[in-house]
């Protein structure tokens, strides 16, 4: 089968004579079968008609006259074309399919040919004396699965490409700035994708997401709730603030009172130490206590000495004096020191022991009784003196000894001036006024009123 057979006939056959006449434009018809060139191989004749004339460029308006040639070809013609095409395609398809098949059926052999052969040489020697002979020609049977004899895995170079078609349009014009601007395509950005990370204006963003399409309606109760919450919150804050202030004030007051009382007690104690005995008591005990006088005298002297030493020191070495003053100022003499309390032991260095266990030879058995017996808290933990003992020791140690009192000092109502001494003294003080009866009269008058 030659290649020429495989190719369909040129399409010009379809255009019959009268149609060809009716075309106003001359078609360049080149009916050329594929030709073979010794050097170039098969020359493909791809382009059968080429538009290359001026007439192919200008418009040919459709008028009524031309309608005939614009009609499609008849049914038979179409059928004919289709048949032809189908056959050609079938052929190609079959060849392709058979090539792809793994096992091929053995090709059918052509029927035997019989050839009547008359020899040109006549004679006894030739042709075994026969005038004619009949030759039977049979094809040699082929092995269907015989591998191909020739290597065909080489790439066959392509045929030359078809000649370039004539360009039938004007050269492209230079793009103007306006056109360039028209071709500026905005970057591809959406609500979901923004690969290059462009900044999208907020209004554009809102416009794109379709949120503005529905009018939003918020229930007014939301605002009411919010307002109410705010007001209650503020009120609560105010209340707590006032409460806190009140508490603070009360605490301050209490603290002040406590300090006052402490200070009073401390003052008293200091005075006692210093030997300044307040009016009435000192007066009452004046006679029967020479010892006291002596003590006071001693203390006074001591203080006097100190003052003179200070003065001398100040005169001779003011620097040292200042240092001393400074030191004294820095020195903390707290109320507790003034009260003569024992220094607080912040740290107990030794372990504490259960004293019940001391001086017993039996160990645990002696200290603790049986289960029901309760002897754990039957004694005070510490047998030291209570703090109250320190505070209310009274003015004199002898006082405690004599009364044999072990608890705090109990105040008793003083006897109602047994000697009338108090009254006398107050009258003596008041005697400074020159007219006692006038005073009396005034008193009486006040009573009357």
């Amino acid at each position: 089968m030659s290649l020429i057979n495989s190719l369909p006939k040129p399409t010009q056959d379809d255009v019959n004579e009268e149609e060809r006449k009716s075309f106003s434009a001359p078609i360049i018809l080149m009916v050329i079968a594929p030709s073979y060139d010794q050097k170039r191989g098969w020359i493909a004749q791809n382009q059968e008609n080429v538009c290359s004339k001026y007439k192919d460029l200008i418009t040919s308006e459709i008028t009524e006259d031309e309608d005939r040639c614009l009609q499609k070809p008849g049914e038979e013609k179409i059928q004919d074309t289709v048949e032809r095409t189908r056959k050609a395609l079938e052929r190609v398809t079959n060849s392709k399919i058979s090539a792809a098949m793994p096992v091929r059926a053995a090709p059918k052999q052509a029927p035997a040919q019989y050839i009547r052969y008359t020899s040109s040489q006549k004679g006894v020697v030739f042709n075994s004396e026969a005038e004619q002979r009949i030759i039977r020609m049979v094809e040699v049977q082929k092995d269907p699965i015989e591998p191909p004899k020739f290597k065909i895995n080489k790439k066959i170079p392509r045929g030359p490409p078809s000649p370039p078609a004539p360009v039938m349009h004007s050269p492209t014009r230079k793009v103007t700035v306006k056109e360039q601007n028209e071709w500026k395509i905005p970057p591809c950005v959406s609500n979901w994708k923004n690969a290059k990370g462009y900044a999208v204006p907020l209004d554009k963003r809102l416009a794109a997401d379709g949120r503005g399409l529905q009018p939003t309606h918020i229930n007014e109760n939301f605002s009411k709730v919010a307002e109410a919450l705010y007001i209650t919150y503020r009120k609560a804050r105010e209340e707590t603030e006032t409460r806190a202030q009140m508490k603070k004030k009360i605490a301050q007051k209490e603290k002040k009172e406590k300090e006052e009382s402490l200070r009073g007690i401390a003052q008293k104690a200091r005075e006692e130490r210093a030997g300044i005995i307040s009016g009435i008591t000192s007066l009452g005990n004046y006679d029967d206590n020479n010892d006291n006088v002596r003590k006071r005298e001693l203390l006074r002297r001591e203080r006097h000495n100190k003052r003179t030493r200070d003065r001398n020191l100040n005169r001779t070495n003011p620097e040292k004096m200042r240092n001393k003053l400074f030191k004294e100022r820095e020195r903390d003499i707290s109320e507790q020191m003034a009260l003569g309390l024992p220094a607080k032991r912040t740290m107990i260095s030794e372990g504490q022991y259960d004293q019940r266990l001391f001086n017993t030879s039996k160990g645990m058995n002696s200290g603790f009784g049986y289960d029901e017996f309760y002897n754990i808290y039957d004694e005070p933990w510490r047998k030291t003196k209570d703090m109250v003992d320190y505070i209310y020791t009274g003015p004199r140690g002898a006082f405690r000894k004599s009364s044999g009192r072990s608890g705090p000092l109990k105040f008793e109502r003083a006897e109602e001036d047994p000697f009338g001494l108090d009254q006398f003294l107050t009258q003596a003080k008041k005697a400074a006024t020159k007219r006692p009866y006038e005073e009396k009269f005034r008193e009486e008058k006040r009573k009357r009123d």
Partner: protein
Amino acid sequence: MTEVQDVQKHSVHTLVFRSLKRTHDMFVSDQRTIPALDEVAEKVKMRTKAKDMYGPFVHKVDELKALQRTRDLERLDDDSIQENGHESNALVPVTEESTATPQSSALSVIPQRKVVTIPKPKWHPPWKLFRVISGHLGWVRCVAVEPGNEWFATGSADRVIKIWELASGKLKVSLTGHVSSVRGLAVSERQPYLFSCGEDRQVKCWDLEYNKVIRHYHGHLSAVYSMTLHPAIDVLITAGRDSTARVWDMRTKANVHTLTGHTNTVASVISQATEPQIITGSHDCTIRLWDLAAGRSMVTLTHHKKSVRSVVFHPNLYMFGSASPDAIKQWRCPEGKFVQNLFGHNAIINCLAINSDGVLVSGADNGTLHFWDWRTGYNFQRLQAPVQPGSMDSEAGIFAMTYDKSGSRLITAEADKTVKIYKEDVTATEETHPVIWKPDLLHSTRRY
């Protein structure tokens, strides 16, 4: 009464323009007719020409005339002689017409141009948006109508093919299987098959009785952008980014032909039963007409200046149209002769559609639809449907469209993820939507 009315003053430019217009209107009716001949001048011209060109044997004409005269006389004498064919002794073979009136034969030398009447465009009712079908999750890239006109299929960038009822617009079936966007669809007329191709290089054959893929046509080297079925032979033709069109045998899946020749992406392929059986439009700005039987290119049309994104056959006439951003062009079929240009759609035209009424629609990347009268190239309507809510204006774009089989509905596949259906406005009449048409004389002979 006697008062002289003021003449409204116009600028010289306006006056000149008006005068031009009036003149134009006066002569528009008989444009292209040749002015009447001045007989005296014509006679002088002919005599001069005869003397100049035929000087040496001009006298022969007179001789012939004389001869003829005598022969006429003879004929009058003898009516039995009917034939004139035997007088072959004359130097110039003379036919009957030329001998009859020599004056007219001289005149016939001038090519008498036919008076071309410019056809008026046919009135078409305007089209209006009729239905918007939303359901796809990506750009809708292709649409195909079933031959029975019951349903249509759309393929989208969300990798799904959806089948919709044409009458109601309801979704019937969603077909999944492609792994990239679906770019081409075709429904077979003779088998219950749907064919689809996509950017995943796959060409699939769906059996619509089972809604399953039954065949793959494997061979494209890159994305497949367009496909078509041959109306009479069981082959399908696909074209794509590998700048080839491939012809597949439907049943055996064999790649019958690989149509190579384009130098860039082939954007559109169409086929018909007559020659040329395949036409492709490509991004290399050319259109190729292919001989299907031989699998080679017959004609290359290089008239377009920009990439051709769509080619479409006229349903009745032996013509086809092609669209590129510079112009829409019409061609005559067997040999691809250029017919005319349709200018005015200044956008990237993605798709074309023609119905049997002769309404050509072009849909562009910016969402505009232009409706044209095929015969005259008159643009009778321009449309731009709004995008569906939630999409941006830039998402208006028409990727594919087709008329239904009756030609009364136009289905468009759009970038706003919807399918829109248009129909003719039945209330419109010729009075409400008149044809405003001016023959474009300037551009009538426009080239390219």
